[in-house]
């Protein structure tokens, strides 16, 4: 027979532990994170828990965030660079409810930024933590399905295989065509997949003042890039690494240097390019920057 809680306790006690995970689990994940920070780029296994969202919706990132978040933190969550997409809104609400932390859409105000696809345009600061939701932590997996073999490759720094994917790309497209999850070498030692961020964001990993934590829930791996760590994108001597460029500017704020999403407007072939980082775009417009389609209806929707 279980003891029934009194009606009074039921009303006042929180239904979940602070930040959803129990304290033992958070300790385990924190230890994993510490190890990951100590060995930059190395994938540390951890006991990934069932979360109240399905695998693939960011369970790795949510567990990392839940383990490091405290009451004084300010939480920001982006999905495809935007603060107002369904997944971002849901995860932000989850932490607002379960950890009672302040939430924000401002990159500068946030202390923890959870993301899948982007690193914000605004330069990150010391003390900020980026938490990445990683679908596939193993950059070699597409070429080598055996986990025992990829582990040996990491252990002995045998990374020639990763270049096979670049070679394939160059022979097919005359350039390195990979655009996201572009493999990097961390601190000249471990090969790492930077999760599906566009290669446009890869240079932001290099010597970043912020701590970068990567959580893969389904694959049960956590890895990290500590602040001020060298991160080099792989390339060939005759085909150097380069990021995406656009001929257009952001239609709303006129930004030339940011990562742009293409938005199809109708079936007449009209389209516009807008900043994928909605907070960056909104701030620029608030500062008075004007793009060629600044009065478009979308400007109201994203501000």
């Amino acid at each position, binding site marked *: 027979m279980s003891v029934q809680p009194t009606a009074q306790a039921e009303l006042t006690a929180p239904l979940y532990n602070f930040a959803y995970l129990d304290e033992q689990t958070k300790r385990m994940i924190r230890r994993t994170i510490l190890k990951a920070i100590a060995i930059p780029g190395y994938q540390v296994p951890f006991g990934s828990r069932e979360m109240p969202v399905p695998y693939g919706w960011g369970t790795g990132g949510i567990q990392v965030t839940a383990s490091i978040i405290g009451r004084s933190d300010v939480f920001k969550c982006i999905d495809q660079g935007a603060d107002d997409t369904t997944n971002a809104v849901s995860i932000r609400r989850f932490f607002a409810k379960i950890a009672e932390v302040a939430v924000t859409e401002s990159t500068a105000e946030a202390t923890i930024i959870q993301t899948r696809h982007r690193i914000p345009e605004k330069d990150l600061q010391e003390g900020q933590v980026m938490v990445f939701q990683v679908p596939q932590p193993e950059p070699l997996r597409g070429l080598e399905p055996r986990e025992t073999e990829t582990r040996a490759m990491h252990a002995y720094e045998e990374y020639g295989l990763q270049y096979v994917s*670049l070679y394939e790309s160059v022979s097919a497209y005359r350039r390195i065509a990979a655009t996201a999850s572009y493999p990097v070498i961390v601190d000249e030692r471990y090969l790492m997949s930077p999760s599906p961020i566009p290669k446009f964001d890869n240079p932001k990993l290099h010597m970043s003042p912020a701590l970068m934590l990567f959580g893969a829930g389904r694959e049960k791996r956590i890895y990290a890039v500590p602040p001020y760590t060298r991160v080099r994108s792989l390339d060939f001597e005759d085909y150097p690494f380069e990021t995406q460029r656009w001929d257009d500017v952001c239609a709303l704020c006129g930004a030339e240097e940011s990562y742009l999403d293409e938005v199809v407007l109708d079936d007449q072939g009209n389209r516009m390019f807008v900043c994928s980082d909605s907070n960056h775009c909104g701030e620029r417009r608030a500062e008075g920057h004007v793009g060629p389609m600044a009065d478009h209806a979308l400007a109201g929707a994203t501000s």
Partner: protein
Amino acid sequence: MTTQAPPLLRVNRVSKWFGEIVGCRNVSFDLHPGEILGVVGESGSGKTTLLRCLSGKLEPTSGGAEFLSKRHGPVDIFQLGEQDRRRLQREEWGFVHQNPRDGLRMRVSGGANVAEPLMSLGGRHYGQMRRATTDWLERVELDISRVDHKPRNFSGGMQQRIQIARNLIHQPRLVFMDEPTGGLDVSVQARLLDLLRELVRDLQLSAIIVTHDMGVARLMADRLLVMKNGDVVETGLTDQVLDDAQHPYTQLLVSSVLQL
């Protein structure tokens, strides 16, 4: 007889047991630089087990094999750490599987398969590797215009040629071959054997070739090792063994070759 160069590989009493079952028992031989050794015998006689042991894929139960490595000098390959052994396999050896699917990456193009050993050894210049790849595809008589096709789009014989190019491009000193022409029809087999023989002679390679095909052994091997139930029952120069077999099993083996 003049003094010879020291042997490239010195195998000393290598045995492999799978529990109660014997894989190979007390196999010893020397392999000299530029020499091709054929290992023949029926299915289950321990040929492949021996090859897997010597190529470092399988740990033997007992015995040693000393390889004259460029990097390490003479080393017992079973005493090497995993990292050094993998490096040795990468740098100085090749391994041609019977089934090209085991030796190729089926998801990447033929060209990338051939270039991979170069990248594993630190090649980072695409143009140079591309040239080496097409050179090698020419040498194994493949159509260069198909360099970017996936292996599954090639015939079995072509896949085997890709595998051979992949295992020779980094100029290994020793190549292990497990039934390199096993699954191929006779005419393709003949052409491939011709090619292999030429390459091996040109490059001054040493090779250990496992085969159950006496014709392959006759064409390719300088010396033969005849195995039965895990034991080496006869060894000697190829022509000597095939023309004047001493052991009853070898006599049976030689006489069972079909004559047309």
